C-alpha cells in the first residue's frame, strides 16, 4: 500500500507546479471513486461486457510437458478486447476522467497497445483523444498507429531524444501541462507521479484477483510462482497484487536485457539501474552517474523504458519480488516456442516472461505451479520477429 504516494522510499510527486493542483484533484476524486459502489459497478460492467473479462487461466499442458517440471498456467490477457492488459487500466482511468468532467484523453505509447486501448475507450466514451508516440516506435508499430487513427485519435510523432517511449512520456507530460484543465493524461503503466502508480496498480489488480481465484479452483492451492514481464510494470504489478501477502508465492518480473545486460543496448532497470528521480517519481533508472537518463533499447517497444514503477523498486529492495533480465534472443526463442507448442502468438513483451518460465519450470516439481501472464497478443510483433530472423514478409 501507499502512504502519501510512497512505496517504501520510492514514488512521490516530482512534477512541475502546474500539475500539482491537478494531481491532488485526481487523487481526491479517485480515492472517493475507489469506494463508490456505483463507480465500481460501472467499471466492472465494462470490464466484463466490453473488455471480455474474466480472462482465461489456461493450463498450458504441452509447454508443461515440454519443459518437464512445474505445471504452467497462462493468464490470458491477450484475449482481452484490444489484445492486451492495457484495456483494464484505460477503462478505469477514462471513467475517472469522465467523472472529473474532462473532454480529452491524452496518452503515451511505446508498442502501441496502450495507445490503441486509450483510443478505443475514448471512442467508446465519446472523448477526444491524442496519442504521443516516438518516431522509432511508429516505424516499428505502423499497424497500431493506423488502428489508433481508425478509432478517431490523433497520433503525434515524437522526434526528440531517442524517439521511443521515454520521449513519448515527456511529450505527453508537456501536452498535459499546456492543456491541463480539459485534459486527462491516461498513463499507460504503473509509473509517474502519485496517484498514477497506485491507480494503475488498482485497475490492473483485476488480473491477479481473478488468477488467484482461478488457480485455487483449478488446483486447490495457491501458485508457487507468478511470472510477468516488466517495462514500467503495470502488467506485473497487476499480476502480483493479489499475491503480495502470500509469502509462499514467488513473484518474478522479467525485464528487457536487449542485447545483454553488459551492453548499452538494454533496458534492465532493476538489474542495472540506480535510484533517481524522473517522470514524477523516485524509483530506479538507467542513468549516467551525473543523473542524465539513458537511452535504452529492447526488441520490444513496450519494455523499452529506462525506469520502472516505484512499487516494483520497493518490492525489489524489500526482496519480496525478484527481477530477472531476459535478452532479445531469449525472448524471440520463447516467442517461437509458445507459438509452436501452444498455438499462441504472444506479444514479444510476454515472451520475455515465457523465456524465464523455460528456465524456472524444469527446476520445479510437477506438483508445483507457475502462473505466467501473457500480457498481450503478438500480432503487432510478427513483422519485427520476421525482420529479426531476416525473413522478408509483406505487411
Amino acid at each position: 500500500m501507499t502512504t502519501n504516494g510512497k512505496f517504501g522510499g520510492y514514488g512521490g510527486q516530482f512534477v512541475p507546479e502546474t500539475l500539482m493542483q491537478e494531481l491532488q484533484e485526481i487523487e481526491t476524486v479517485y480515492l472517493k471513486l475507489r469506494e463508490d459502489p456505483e463507480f465500481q459497478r460501472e467499471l466492472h460492467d465494462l470490464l466484463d461486457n466490453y473488455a471480455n473479462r474474466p480472462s482465461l487461466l489456461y493450463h498450458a499442458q504441452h509447454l508443461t510437458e515440454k519443459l518437464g517440471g512445474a505445471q504452467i498456467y497462462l493468464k490470458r490477457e491477450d484475449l482481452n478486447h484490444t489484445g492486451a492488459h492495457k484495456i483494464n487500466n484505460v477503462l478505469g482511468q477514462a471513467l475517472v476522467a469522465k467523472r472529473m468532467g474532462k473532454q480529452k484523453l491524452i496518452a503515451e505509447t511505446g508498442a502501441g497497445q496502450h495507445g490503441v486501448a486509450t483510443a478505443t475507450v475514448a471512442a467508446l466514451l465519446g472523448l477526444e483523444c491524442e496519442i504521443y508516440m516516438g518516431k522509432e516506435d511508429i516505424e516499428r508499430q505502423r499497424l497500431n498507429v493506423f488502428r489508433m487513427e481508425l478509432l478517431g485519435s490523433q497520433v503525434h510523432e515524437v522526434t526528440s531524444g531517442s524517439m521511443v517511449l521515454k520521449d513519448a512520456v515527456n511529450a505527453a507530460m508537456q501536452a498535459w501541462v499546456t492543456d491541463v484543465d480539459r485534459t486527462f493524461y491516461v498513463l499507460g503503466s504503473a509509473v509517474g507521479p502519485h496517484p498514477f502508480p497506485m491507480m494503475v496498480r488498482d485497475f490492473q489488480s483485476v488480473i491477479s484477483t481473478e488468477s488467484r481465484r482461478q488457480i485455487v479452483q483449478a488446483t486447490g492451492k495457491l501458485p508457487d510462482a507468478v511470472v510477468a514481464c516488466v517495462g514500467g510494470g503495470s502488467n506485473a504489478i497487476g499480476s502480483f497484487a493479489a499475491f503480495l501477502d502470500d509469502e509462499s508465492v514467488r513473484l518474478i518480473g522479467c525485464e528487457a536485457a536487449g542485447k545483454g545486460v553488459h551492453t548499452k543496448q538494454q533496458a534492465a532497470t532493476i538489474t542495472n539501474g540506480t535510484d533517481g528521480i524522473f517522470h514524477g517519481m523516485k524509483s530506479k533508472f538507467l542513468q549516467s552517474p551525473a543523473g542524465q537518463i539513458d537511452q535504452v533499447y529492447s526488441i520490444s517497444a513496450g519494455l523499452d523504458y529506462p525506469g520502472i514503477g516505484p512499487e516494483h523498486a520497493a518490492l525489489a529492495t524489500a526482496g519480496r519480488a525478484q527481477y530477472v533480465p531476459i535478452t532479445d534472443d531469449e525472448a524471440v526463442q520463447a516467442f517461437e516456442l509458445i507459438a509452436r507448442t501452444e498455438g499462441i502468438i504472444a506479444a514479444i513483451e510476454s515472451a520475455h516472461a515465457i523465456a524465464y518460465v523455460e528456465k524456472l519450470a524444469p527446476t520445479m516439481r510437477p506438483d508445483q505451479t507457475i502462473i505466467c501472464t501473457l500480457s498481450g497478443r503478438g500480432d503487432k510483433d510478427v513483422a519485427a520477429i520476421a525482420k529479426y530472423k531476416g525473413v522478408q514478409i509483406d505487411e
Partner: protein
Amino acid sequence: MSKLTAALTAKKALIGFVVAGDPSCEATVENILALAQGGADVIEIGIPFSDPVADGPVIAAADQRALDRNVTTDDVFDVVSQVREQSDVPLVFLTYVNPVFQVGYREFCRRCTALGVDGLIIPDLPYEEQDDLRSAMQDLDLDLIQLVTPNSKARIPKIAQRAQGFVYVVSATGVTGMRNDFEANLAGVIAELRQYTKLPIEIGFGIHTPEQAHEMSQLADGVIVGSQIVDLIHRAGAQAPAQLIDYAQEMKRAITE
C-alpha cells in the same frame, strides 16, 4: 534579507537565463558577464538535463547540445567559479531534481555556497517534496526559489510561506518558450501572492519582447527571460556577448521606464 532578495528589492529587475555549456563553457562565462554588463540583476544558469520536461524546444535543444559536448555538473560549477573571478552578479542554478539528487543534496548545496551560487530553481520539485533538500540547505546562504503557476490556486499561501529569495510566477500554463499570450488571471494570482509574501515577485515563461517585458513589469517586480536569450546565443555565435549586452540594456530600459 538574502543577497538574492536584496538584489531584486526596490527596483524593477531583469533576470536572464543561459544554458551552461551551450555552445561551450568558455562562451557561457562570457555570456553571463555580458548579460550582467547589460544590466541583468540576476542570472539563472541552467545545468543541462537529458529530459527537461518543463522546458520547450529552444531550451531542450540547448540542453541537448551541451550534453552532446559532455558538459557535466562539475563543468557547470567551473563556469560559476570563473564568473566569480570577475563578477559578483547574483547567480541561481536552474536544473531538474535528478542531477542534484545524484550529486547528493548536501554536497550539492555545500558546493553551491562555496562557489557563490545564491539560489536554486528546481521545476520538478514541488514544495511537498522539498523537505530533504531544505534540510540540506539549512544554515547555508542559499535560497530555494518557489514557483507559482496560474493554477496554483489554494496552494499559493503554502508556497508563499516556503518562499526564499524571490517568487517565480509562471506566466502561462505550459512549457518554457517565447509566446504572445499570457494567462488572463495573472494580475489576480500576483495580488493574492502579495498578501502572503513580501519577497520580490518575478514573472517568467514566454517573455521575449521589450513590450511584453514592460507590460509584465507593471504587474510584478521584474521579469525572467530565458528562451529568447538561449536562442540569441545559439544564433549569434561569437557575436553573442555584444548582442546580449544590447538586448539586456533594451529589456532593462523597457521594464524600468
